[in-house]
C-alpha cells in the first residue's frame, strides 16, 4: 500500500464482491481435486465435498485417507517412475529447446550473415504449420528413423519450435543492444562466449518464460507420448493418469490423487519462476 487509503464506495465493494465470486468459481474445482484425492472409492460417493461429521470444524477427518496416494506409488500403478519420466522429459526438453531457440533467435537478431532475410522468412512460415497436420506423417517418419518407443523420438521433435526462435529474436532486438555485444567482442570474448555470458543473462525474462512454456508443453503433452512411446515404464504422467482413468474407471479418489501428484511439481516450479514468466509472456504479447 502506498499510504493512500482506497476510497470505499459502492462500486468498489461491488468490484471486490465480483472478484471474490470469480475466485470461488476458480478455487472450488481445485479444492474438490485436493479433497477427493484423500477419499476412498466409497468416501467419494458418500460425500460430494468434505465429509461432514463429528470432528474439528464439523468435518469428519477420519474419513480422509492417504491410502490412495500410497497406492499410486505402489508397483501396481507405479506413478513414481512416471513422475521421474515426466520430470526428465520436460526438464530436458525445456533446456534444449530454450538453448537451441535462444541460440538461433539471438543469431538472427544480433548477427549479420548472408541469408538472414531468408531465415527470417523460414521462421515466420514455420509458425503457421498446424501441428495436427504433422501428427500422422511424423509418426510414420519416426518409425522410419527407428525412433519410436524412445525418449529421443519424443524430445528431438520438440526442441526446435519455430515460435521459440521468433520469441528470442524479438527479445534480443528489444533488450540486447548491439554495442554491448561489440564491447564484449573487444573485451576478447568469442561469439559463443558472448552469447552465453553476455546475451543469455540479458534475455533472462524470456529464458524463464520459455523454459516454463516448453516445460509445461512437454508435461502436458499427451498425444506425443501416446503415439511415440510404447513401453509401459517409459510413459509420462499424462498418459499414466489417462491409463489409470481407463483401467480404474470407478476409483475417482485414486484418479484425483494421481492428478494431484501430477500438478504439484508444475505448480512449485511455476511459483519459483513466476516473475520471469509473467514478464516474458507480457513482452511476447505486447510486441507480438
Amino acid at each position, binding site marked *: 500500500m502506498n499510504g493512500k487509503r482506497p476510497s470505499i464506495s459502492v462500486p468498489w465493494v461491488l468490484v471486490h464482491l465480483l472478484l471474490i465470486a470469480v475466485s470461488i468459481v476458480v478455487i472450488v474445482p481445485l479444492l474438490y481435486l485436493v479433497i477427493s484425492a484423500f477419499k476412498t472409492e466409497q468416501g467419494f460417493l458418500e460425500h460430494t465435498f468434505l465429509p461432514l461429521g463429528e470432528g474439528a470444524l464439523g468435518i469428519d477427518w477420519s474419513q480422509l485417507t492417504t491410502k490412495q496416494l500410497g497406492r499410486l506409488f505402489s508397483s501396481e500403478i507405479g506413478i513414481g517412475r512416471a513422475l521421474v519420466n515426466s*520430470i*526428465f522429459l520436460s526438464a530436458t526438453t525445456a*533446456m534444449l529447446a530454450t538453448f537451441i531457440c535462444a541460440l538461433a533467435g539471438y543469431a538472427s537478431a544480433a548477427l549479420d550473415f548472408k541469408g538472414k532475410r531468408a531465415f527470417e522468412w523460414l521462421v515466420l512460415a514455420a509458425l503457421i504449420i498446424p501441428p495436427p497436420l504433422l501428427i500422422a506423417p511424423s509418426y510414420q517418419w519416426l518409425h522410419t528413423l527407428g525412433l519410436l518407443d524412445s525418449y529421443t523420438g519424443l524430445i528431438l521433435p520438440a526442441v526446435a519450435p519455430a515460435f521459440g526462435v521468433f520469441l528470442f529474436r524479438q527479445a534480443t532486438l528489444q533488450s540486447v543492444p548491439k554495442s554491448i555485444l561489440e564491447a564484449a567482442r573487444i573485451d576478447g570474448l568469442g561469439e559463443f562466449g558472448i552469447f552465453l555470458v553476455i546475451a543469455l543473462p540479458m534475455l533472462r525474462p524470456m529464458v524463464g518464460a520459455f*523454459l516454463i512454456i516448453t516445460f509445461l508443453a512437454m508435461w502436458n503433452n499427451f498425444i506425443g507420448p501416446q503415439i511415440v512411446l*510404447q513401453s509401459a515404464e517409459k510413459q509420462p504422467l499424462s498418459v499414466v493418469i489417462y491409463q489409470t482413468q481407463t483401467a480404474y474407471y*470407478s476409483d475417482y479418489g485414486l484418479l484425483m490423487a494421481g492428478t494431484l501428484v501430477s500438478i504439484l511439481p508444475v505448480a512449485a516450479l511455476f511459483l519459483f519462476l513466476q516473475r*520471469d514468466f509473467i514478464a516474458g509472456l507480457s513482452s511476447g504479447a505486447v510486441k507480438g
Partner: protein
Amino acid sequence: MFQTGVYRNAGTPLSMDGNGKVGQDGTRRSSKLLSLPLRYALSPGVAVMLVLSIISGITIALMETARHTGELTMWTFAKPHYDIYVPAVDEWNNEDKSEVDMFLIGRQVMDRRMLGGFLGEVPTADLLEAERSSASLTFAGPLDAVGFVDLTESLEEEGLLVKINKPSLSPWTYEGRIFGIPHDVHPVMLAYRADIIEEAGIDMQAVETWDDLYRVLGPLQQRRSKGHPMDRYVMSLWDSESDMLETLLLQSGGGAFLPDGTLAIDRDINVQTVSHMVSWMIGPDRVATHVPEFSPTGDQLKLDGHALCYLMPDWMCNVWRHNVPSLEGKVKLIPMPAWKPGGTRTSVWGGSMLGIAKTSSKQDEAWEFAKHLYLSEELALDLYRSGDIITPIREHWDNPVFAEPDAYFGGQRKGLMYIELADDVPNRPATPYFKQAREAVQNAVSRTKQEAASLDLYTPEQIEPIARRNLELAHIQVKTIVDANAFLREDSEEVSP
C-alpha cells in the same frame, strides 16, 4: 611516450609490442570457454532445469538397471482379470519356468499401443489379453498384417479345438484363422432385486418373455412424490450403454453383422428389436432407466434399487460382488426373458482372448504360459472362484465348484445356471468394423430415442419407421468405411512406403 602511469605500481607484466600480451596468444584459447564466468549463463530457471534433468536422468538409468524384467511380458486391460491372474503368475514364476511380467493397461491405451506395436514393429508385450473391440482392430489390413500369431494349427494339434465351447471362438476367427485363445463364454442372465420383488410376492420363474417381465414388474415402479419422475424402474437399459444394446440385439437374433461377417445393420430384426428397446426407454410409462456400469454413480443407484433388473453376464457378477457388496443375498438370477415365447434365453456380453504377438521373440514360451493360464483346470476354477467367469473349456464344467451355492445370489447354483446357457450363446463374427458398427448402432438407437420422444411416439409400432431410417443411415455410414478399406478390394495392390 607510451606511458602506463596508472599502473606504475600495479606490478603487472605488460609487454609493449601488443602481440604477445597475456592470454592473447593462441595457446590459451582452447581453455577459454571453461574460464568464462559461466554462472552468468545459469539463470535460476536454467539451473533448476539442469538439476532436474540430470537427477531424473540418473534416476531413470538406475531404475532401468534395477528393473526386474521377466522373460515374458503380458498386458491385460481389465482390473478384475489382473487381480485374478496375480497369484497364478506368481505361482508360475515361483515354479521357475519362464518368468512373466504382467501389466494392467487401460483399454483405450491398450488399443493404441497394441496397434502401434503391431504396425510400427515396436515391441508390445509377448502376450496380450485383448477385448473384442481391441482384437477386431487388428483385422483391418491384409491378413498377413494381423499382429497376432495364427494359432489355428497349434490349437488343432493339441486337440484343443474340440474342447472349447464353439461360440467362444467366433470373435477371434478371421478368414478361417484363429488368432487367440478364448478366455470366456460370457452367457448373460437377468439379475433382479429379489428382496424388493419377493417382498411384493412376485414369482420371477413365471417370467418367460420381456413383455411378461414388464407386465409383472410394472406395478413396482415408484414415484417418490407427485409431479416427480419415478425413482424406481423395472429395467436398467440406456442408449448410452452400447454393450447392453448389442447384447439385446444379439439375443433377438440380430446384430450388426451376419454370421459370415457381412454388414447388415438395417435388417428387419434389428429394426424391430431397436423399436422395442426404445419404447422401453421413453414415454410416460417408460420402464427402463440409466444405471451406468463401472461408475460409482451407477453403484449408488444399484444400492438405491433405482432399477429392479439388470443384464448380468457372468463376469458382471464379480463386478457387483466387489462394487456393491452390501447387496449380498438381495440379488437373484434368471435366464434372460426371451423376445418371443420359446426364444433364446441368453446372449453374450464382452469377451476377450489371449493372443501372442508376432513380434514376440519367445512365442513358444508364450504359448506354454497361455495354455497354462487359460486352459488348465486349476485356473478355470480360479477364474470362476475369484472372477465368476465360466471357462470356455467344456471338460471343466463338471467340476463341483460350479454347483456350489452362491450366497451373493441368494444361494443360487449360479455356475450351473450359466453353463446351462452356454450352448445358446450367439455367434459373433470377427470383423475389423466391430467398433464402428457398434458406435453407429448406438448412435442410431440414441437418435431414434430422441426423435420418437420429441414426437410423442411411444409404442414399438410407432417407433419402427424412425428406427428403420436411423439404422439405414448407420448402415450406410459403416458401409462407407468398409468400402474405403482399400486393402480388402479385389484389385488392391500394395505399395511400399
